[in-house]
């Protein structure tokens, strides 16, 4: 039994299965949490009827989505149309693999873990493009066009801030980066506050969350790229959006807040607490700020975030050369 468990392939399969469970469970929790947060901000109870405090509501939602008929619109490119939601969700377990919940609870320790996450989370844009293209719907196509220009622009500040942290810790291995920051005073957050703020803004934009949710802006584009999707087609897109939020918050927790490290009793629970605190902040943004205009969105990126990110990177390199 222990010999079997020592096999790396078996470990990988176990990690992937555990992560799939984690994905499903967190999807349900996040749907509930989002609706409760909206309710709280708008001074109403939110879902309350199904189960205690509406806890079983997401389960009912999921059953409803699964039970719905899958409709392909007329004139749609059928294979591309159905490939899109699958392609959106497929990289998710892979992106979770290198995230260390604790030194032991890591799916797979990789020397280039950060690059793996950034590479495979980029596939989501492709999925949105295919969805927009395959739907044969002008709203979808407009949504896809917006998704492309937005995510290509915001990927740059995201990479620049990640590079700052990589310079500082001299590694792209998430376990090593987290290991460098033991003790709350050694968190990168205190050394690189500007990078953290930029990372968080870019992350909100990359995950298409409000106030940057222009690809699906419902008041202008119906539902943007997933206008034509019914049932689990839509469900998969939503699941993918929530999962990329968790992935990017997990990355932020590891890069800037020491990962599993905490004031007392370090362990995976601190990772979960940090991730959920950042998710709550993202939901808080969504219901606080109005949606930005598209030119504002791109101006913020090209005129502020990218120059600031480059300056921050140069400053980091200089200080690392002088001190380290």
């Amino acid at each position, binding site marked *: 039994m222990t010999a079997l468990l020592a096999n790396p392939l078996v470990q990988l399969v176990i990690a992937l299965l555990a992560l799939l469970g984690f994905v499903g469970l967190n999807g349900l929790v996040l749907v509930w949490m989002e609706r409760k947060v909206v309710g709280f901000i708008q001074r109403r109870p939110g879902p309350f009827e199904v189960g205690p405090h509406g806890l079983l509501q997401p389960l009912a939602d999921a059953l409803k989505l699964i039970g719905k008929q899958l409709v392909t619109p007329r004139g749609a490119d059928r294979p591309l149309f159905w490939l899109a939601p699958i392609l959106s969700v497929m990289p998710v377990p892979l992106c979770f693999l290198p995230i260390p919940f604790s030194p032991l609870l890591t799916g797979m320790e990789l*020397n280039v873990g950060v690059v793996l996450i950034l590479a495979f989370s980029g596939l989501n844009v492709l999925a949105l493009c295919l969805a927009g293209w395959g739907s044969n719907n002008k709203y979808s196509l407009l949504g896809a066009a917006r998704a492309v220009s937005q995510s290509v622009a915001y990927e740059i500040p995201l990479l620049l801030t990640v590079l700052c942290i990589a310079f500082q810790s001299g590694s792209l291995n998430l376990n090593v980066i987290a290991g460098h920051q033991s003790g709350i005073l050694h968190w990168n957050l205190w050394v690189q506050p500007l990078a953290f703020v930029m990372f968080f803004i870019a992350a909100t934009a990359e995950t298409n969350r409000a106030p940057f949710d222009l690809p699906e802006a419902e008041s202008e584009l119906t539902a943007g790229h997933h206008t034509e999707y019914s049932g689990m087609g839509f469900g998969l897109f939503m699941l993918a959006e929530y999962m990329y939020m968790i992935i990017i918050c997990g990355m932020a927790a590891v890069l800037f807040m020491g990962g599993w490290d905490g004031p007392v009793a370090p362990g995976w629970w601190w990772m979960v607490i940090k991730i959920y605190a950042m998710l709550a902040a993202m939901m808080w943004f969504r219901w606080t700020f109005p949606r930005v205009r598209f030119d504002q969105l791109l101006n913020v990126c090209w005129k502020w975030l990218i120059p600031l990110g480059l300056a921050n990177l140069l400053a980091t390199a200089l200080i690392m050369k002088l001190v380290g």
Partner: protein
Amino acid sequence: MDADLQQMLALPAYGLYLLIILAGGIMAVGSASLVRALLGLILTLFGVAGMYLLMAAPFLAFMQILIYVGAVSVLIFFAIMLTKGPDGEAGGEEPPKVGGRLVLAGLTGLVPAAILAGAVARFAPQAVPLKPETSLFKLGEFLAGPYVLAFELISVVLFAAMAGAVLLGFERRKGK
């Protein structure tokens, strides 16, 4: 991973990546819709990333996916959306002007393949065992050391391309 497992998995993985690359290539050439052709290109790029992984260069593999799949292909997609055929529909292929399209395509594909196959068959190098992963530090040292000229030349080319793009953008705006 231990060496036995690597040896065992290397050959099937090689076959799989080869299949992915070829299937992507055929899809890119054969499909009438430009978006599907792009999908074929992306499939090929994925296969090549897999080949990098086999050569124990995971950094290159992930960079390939990050840059080519995540950025370049998406920009090509954007360009396709800006095109428009005579029927007002974007992303359609022109109908072939000369007959024997398959013959021409087969000729242009098979002749280089035959020449390459002949070269490989004559001067085939010995198979080398899988090398351990090269660390990023070593990669960086090589880029900033012996290969610094090539590296800088590439950055100059990129800079020229970027400056040119900005210039073109400004000129068009002036014309309005």
